């Protein structure tokens, strides 16, 4: 039975210890709350669902605080070190993903495959110019694709497109037509081009694009310094028409609290890439200047079990770990009841290929499975860190939830600084998350296919891989959906990833910002504006 996302459960029963530990991270923010000490968490007002909309002022400058990737960050969209916020403003893709998760035209106006799903023909938009005046043609599109699959560039999307694209078989028969001959059939190919690494750069500009940022997007680069500040200004010749704003100024701030303080003091209008913890979010919401908007289902949280490590080599143990916990309880504790259950399936609810398949919680069955696998009691360490405010509360809630099934979890808090190098994919059980916004095919291939470098559970199952291949080679969309749904069932039943929930990102922004919209991590740069 699928659990209804909106179902109102009984008031959350939060074990006292969990609540205390979960709140510890909010201490710094609590200092900012004079006079609110008397109202408990129950009395706290609900956080707003969406940003204000309406008619904006003509023009204006938006100031944005962002965490810098590092001093090595670049404007090269294909790089793993790209300065994220700039990309969607400076560049366009061939294909984009709409709010419902369907592919939609961007620089390509239409596309079709041959019957085998091998040869793809893209018709390109006419009359589009790069910021430096050059005309956009198929040569630029071909160059962009060849570059992404170049092993020397080591683009994150290279691992996805590399097996499909042969640089020698990307053709440009006309300036307005791009033909890609794939090496294996793939009816989902356009969806894979919606990734943010696939923004189109001008032909031959690979060596300079990291600092010039020349694209076809609604803004052009005025200045940029890696890890420092930057400014982008409206590009009046943008093919969709000029953006609402005159300019956006970007400021790098490494410290989370510094970003929040800058927003509260009115020095910036928006904080990007920052999931505010609930205590801080309430402080922001209570201020006169700033408020909160949600980026809905922006991330999914995972407790990956490393399937190559004991005791998770045994599929029965993995199944028991999933049956033992109650996602509702984790959502109540870690997300204060505001998330959507994941049912151990990372494909976001209500996206085109999603299945509502779910397995009910059953601690008794979990206990029986563990006994069958030879574990009377199972003791495990679950690693977490302050990297994201939800990790530790999620880990503690999981621990409390599975105790009933005879599973003893010890939560180990480790340094956020080296979390993704020392803990992720190294420790058998840990807490992590992913940003949504990738199509189902990419998600399943990238995170669950055997041998993929992002396969965090090291799960390898030939039957699963075959299902994905079959889906990609299936022309009929309904049939293809069924195959992807079968693959999701395998992830739920046999895979190593526990996916308790999808969560909104709590974004801090000024009350003067209108029409803010972000899906996954993509801003709507065209329409965002300021109150007149």
């Amino acid at each position: 039975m699928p659990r209804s996302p909106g179902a109102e459960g009984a008031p959350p029963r939060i074990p006292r210890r969990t609540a205390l530990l979960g709140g510890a991270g909010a201490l710094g923010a609590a200092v900012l709350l004079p006079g609110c000490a008397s109202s408990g968490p129950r009395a706290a007002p609900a956080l707003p669902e969406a940003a204000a909309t309406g008619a904006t002022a003509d023009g204006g400058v938006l100031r944005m605080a962002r965490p810098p990737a590092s001093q090595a960050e670049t404007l090269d969209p294909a790089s793993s070190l790209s300065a994220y916020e700039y990309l969607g403003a400076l560049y366009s893709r061939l294909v984009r993903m709409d709010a419902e998760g369907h592919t939609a035209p961007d620089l390509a106006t239409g596309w079709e495959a041959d019957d085998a799903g091998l040869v793809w023909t893209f018709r390109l938009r006419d009359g589009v110019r790069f910021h430096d005046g050059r005309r956009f043609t198929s040569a630029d599109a071909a160059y962009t694709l060849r570059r992404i699959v170049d092993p020397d560039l080591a683009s994150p999307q290279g691992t996805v497109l590399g097996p499909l694209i042969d640089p020698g078989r990307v053709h440009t028969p006309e300036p307005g037509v791009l033909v890609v001959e794939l090496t294996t059939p793939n009816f989902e190919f356009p969806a894979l081009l919606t990734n943010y690494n696939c923004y189109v750069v001008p032909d031959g500009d690979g060596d300079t694009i990291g600092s010039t940022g020349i694209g076809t997007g609604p803004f052009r680069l005025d200045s940029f310094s890696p890890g420092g500040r930057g400014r982008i200004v409206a590009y009046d010749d943008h093919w969709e028409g000029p953006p609402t704003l005159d300019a956006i100024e970007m400021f790098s701030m490494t410290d989370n609290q510094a970003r929040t303080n800058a927003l509260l003091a009115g020095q910036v209008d928006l904080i990007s890439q920052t999931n505010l913890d609930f205590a801080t979010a309430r402080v922001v919401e209570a201020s006169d200047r700033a408020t909160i908007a949600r980026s809905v289902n922006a991330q999914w949280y995972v407790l990956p079990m490393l399937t190559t490590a004991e005791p998770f080599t045994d599929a029965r143990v993995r199944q028991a770990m999933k049956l033992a916990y109650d996602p509702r309880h984790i959502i109540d504790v870690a997300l204060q009841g505001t998330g959507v259950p994941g049912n151990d399936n990372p494909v976001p609810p209500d996206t085109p290929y999603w299945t509502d398949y779910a397995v009910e919680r059953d601690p008794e069955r979990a206990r029986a499975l563990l006994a069958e696998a030879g574990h009377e009691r199972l003791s495990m360490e679950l690693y977490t860190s302050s990297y994201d405010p939800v990790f530790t509360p999620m880990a503690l809630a999981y621990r409390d939830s599975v105790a009933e099934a005879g599973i003893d979890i010890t939560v180990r808090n480790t340094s956020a600084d080296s979390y993704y190098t020392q803990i992720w994919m190294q420790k058998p059980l840990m807490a992590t998350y992913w940003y949504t916004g990738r199509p189902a095919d990419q998600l399943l291939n990238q995170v669950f296919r055997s041998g993929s470098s992002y396969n965090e559970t090291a799960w390898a199952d030939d039957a699963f891989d075959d299902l994905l291949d079959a889906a990609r080679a299936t022309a009929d969309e309904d049939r293809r959906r069924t195959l992807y749904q079968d693959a999701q069932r395998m992830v739920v039943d046999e895979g190593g990833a526990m996916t308790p929930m999808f969560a909104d990102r709590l974004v801090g922004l000024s009350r003067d910002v209108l029409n803010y919209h972000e899906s996954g991590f993509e801003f709507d740069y065209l329409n965002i504006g300021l109150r007149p």
Partner: protein
Amino acid sequence: MIVYISRRLLSAVVTVLLASVIVFAAVQLLPGDVATQVLGQDATPDAVAALREQMGLNRPAALRFVDWVTGAVRGDFGVSLVSGEPVAATLWLHLRNTMLIAVATIAVAVTSSIVLGVLAGLYRDRWPDTVISTLTLVGMSVPEFVVATLLVLALSITVPVLPAVVLDEASAPVADLLPAVVLPTIALSVVMTAYIVRMTRTSVIDVMASEFVTTARLKGLGTGRVVVRHALPSALLPTLNVIAMNVAWLVGGVAVVENVFNYPGVGRMLLEAVHNRDLPVLQAIAVVSAAVYVLCNLAADLGAMALNPRLRTGERSAR
């Protein structure tokens, strides 16, 4: 005297050298390297290999250290592994910015704490002492980031007169940074004042109870004169070392406060370098901080010598 100073200088050089060796070794012991740290969740084996190659990390650690030392001796601190910019130029800018805070903090903290310390010592166990001692104990106990947060709340958010964070980069002109210096200075002064007040108070109490002060009083000198001419120079002696330690702490230890205010100083540069395992930057900061530390201590010892006739043995009296 000259032998003493040269011996101190030699040990200073050895200290700085040792500091750089220890920092180098410590970074090697930290989990992850610059390539994995910078890539984070995108640290797939291919991406890490490509970045390591690009950053020249594939050479043995010892060899990279020798390279660094030979460069540093010639005054070349190398380039940052992350940004590719020359370390010396970046460090100089950040050092300049931190010095802005440091000089302001020292001026504010030392002046106010000596005045408060003397007052507390003179009014021992009476109400001025109780008030000063209680406040300094509170200042000592509250972490500087909490003080910083409260200051932001009061002076940036409730009454917006000062910026909460610095939006400028390290290369901004000094004039632009000045408004941003105020809050960090207050936050650091609160912490620093506490230690110096405690020390000054103790010294003043000791000195005021000593025989020569009693003699001075018996001669019929007024309290003001006794304190300024006789008690203060002696009382400042032990305080000097505490001030020196605090000055050194400022240069290396403002990391937390700089981070909260997003202030482009050495402290924030240090935090970012540690996070990224950017060895050349870390080494340069370590050497500079060690040098400042050693020089401050040396200056304090020489200052103490100048103030205390008993330490100037072997020198002929000036008068």
